[in-house]
């Protein structure tokens, strides 16, 4: 195991069995500059303080003891493997001053990163819209730099789901410390919950490659809420029936996502602002000026149909266009 930078400073300080104030300051500065102050690093400094025969000049010992007492450690757990194509340009970095939730949970917090898991992001946003408390209840801050995310594992139709807890640390994948996480993140760069849920899901399923190649948005909503839902193809209902179903389900606070057709039908999406091969969050349905619409959100957090004055990914689509551009809707339980 390679010696840490803190360990190097300690070794230098102990060469003459005496730790000077400057050496103590150097150890503290090095520790502060570490990406993460872990229990293992703390143990190295504690061992030095307890080492027989070592003397400390001036306030060196007190300074080190004060630093240890005032600096909480953060555990560093093994992270899930990133996508194969990102192994060389991504590292794991803590989000400085990151908070699990900033101003509570909001469906508009979610922003998909450079990974093909729109089914997961769309579902997260849908659950945040219909039942934000379900998201809050799903994540526990363990107070040691780790978070435990509770999912539900489906056991089959009409069978009770089984809770599964996955603990991850707070590091998120990014190209450099301080940059926006490369995969799921929140609009507010300090808010952690979207990135942590995605990370824990990747940890559960075997890495980002395992979750980053499509999936079932309905199954993802079940994983987040423990309740089974259903999928309804637009082709199986009339436009008015689809409208009424979405409206009713929105009133009942059920999470919903809608999927577009595959890339082979890309042409029909030209100049629509809607993307093929994608999952959107369904926010609801309504009527304006005698025209029925479905309100949707792109999990990217931008890129939308129409011109409502802000490109936040949230848009109202005429019902006829929804029937034409979307293949069906997943209704969560």
């Amino acid at each position, binding site marked *: 195991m390679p010696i840490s930078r803190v360990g190097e400073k300690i070794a230098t300080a102990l060469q003459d069995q005496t730790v000077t104030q400057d050496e103590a300051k150097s150890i503290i500065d090095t520790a502060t500059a570490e990406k993460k102050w872990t229990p293992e690093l703390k143990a190295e400094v504690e061992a030095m303080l307890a080492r027989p025969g070592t003397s400390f000049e001036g306030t060196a010992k007190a300074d080190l003891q004060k630093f240890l007492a005032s600096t909480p450690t953060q555990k560093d757990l093994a992270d899930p493997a990133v*996508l*194969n194509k990102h192994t060389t340009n991504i590292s794991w970095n803590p989000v400085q001053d990151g908070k699990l939730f900033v101003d509570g949970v909001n469906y508009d917090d979610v922003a998909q990163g450079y990974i093909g898991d*729109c089914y997961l992001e769309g579902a997260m946003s849908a659950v945040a819209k219909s039942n934000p408390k379900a998201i809050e209840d799903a994540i526990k801050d363990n107070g040691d730099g780790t978070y435990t995310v509770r999912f539900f594992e489906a056991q089959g139709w009409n069978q009770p789901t089984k809770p599964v807890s996955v603990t991850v640390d707070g590091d998120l994948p990014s190209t450099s410390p301080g940059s926006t996480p490369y995969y799921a993140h929140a609009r507010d760069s300090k808010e952690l919950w979207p990135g942590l849920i995605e990370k824990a899901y990747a940890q559960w399923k075997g890495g980002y*490659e395992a979750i980053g190649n*499509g999936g*079932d948005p309905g199954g993802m909503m079940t994983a987040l809420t423990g309740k089974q839902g259903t999928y309804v193809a637009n082709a199986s209902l009339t436009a008015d029936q689809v409208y009424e179903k979405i409206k009713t389900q929105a009133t009942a606070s059920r999470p919903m996502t809608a*999927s577009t*057709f595959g890339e082979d039908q890309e042409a029909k999406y030209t100049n629509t602002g809607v993307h093929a091969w994608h999952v959107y969050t369904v926010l609801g349905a309504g009527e304006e000026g005698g025209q029925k619409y479905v309100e949707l959100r792109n999990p990217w957090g931008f890129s939308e149909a129409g011109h409502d004055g802000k490109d936040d990914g949230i848009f109202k689509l005429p019902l006829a266009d929804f029937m034409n551009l979307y293949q069906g809707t997943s209704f969560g339980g």
Partner: protein
Amino acid sequence: MAFDLAKAVRDAAPNASIPVPAGTYPATLVIEKPLSLVAMGRVVLDAGGRASVARIATKDGLVRLAGFIIAGGDSPEGGGGVAVLAGAAELLECTFRYNKAPVNGGGGLWATGNSQVTVTRCRFEGNTGRQGGAILVDEVASLKLSDSTVIQNAAVLGGGLKVREGATATIHGCTIADNKVVGDAAMGSALHLSGSTTRTPTVSLSHCIVSERAEGPACLFNGSPHPGKLTLTRNLLPPWCKALGGDNLFAEAKFTLQGTEPYQLQPDSPALGAAAEDGFPKGAKDLSGRARHSATAKPALGAFSLVR
């Protein structure tokens, strides 16, 4: 008056048998009771790219589809051709052709939940899905696939079949060939297994032929971090598979690659007569409906027992 298939399904009493007259039917069926649908001649069920051709979810009993060409299905949920979400289903002598599941997977067939699906003498050809071009077996579902071909399907993970979570697949007497995986993560052109920290998929492959252009995990993927339980018994596998050992054969399959049945065997194929003594039960038939056993030779491996 034209036969209204959707109405026939809707109105049928549980456990009814519905003969479907020859013809092509636009079909996005939802089957929620035990039923038997039987093709009377050449019957094409075509979803026209709008949804799954059939979506099956029953509490009890068996849904049986026999003799259909299932085409043009397209479902983001999964199972462009047929999605079995719950209950037992039997698919007999069906052809799954050009179905898609671009968001999730199982272009031809998606068996999920705790469903139990038996597939006998079926053909999966040219289907595509994100995971499992022809077939995705998911959650704790079980699949028995026998005397069938899985040919020229494509996906990102598992061009032919993908088995994930705690699902089980028993594959016997099948030919899995010329499937493809595409994309950055492309793995498992024939078969892809992946579990999680809480569940492990189980796959048994016996008396089959696997013949793919890709090698290694790009052909058969059962890798880290959560591999499944994969048992390979008496199959004809590509030469690079030798390291897998067991009582498998390792050689080129030697298909005829001609005519209407291009995956029949040439007279010098190593698959001929290579079945174990008890590999197929007495009276067993191959994909073309011919007897597996003859007076002069042991049965062959793969979907087709006899030479062209």
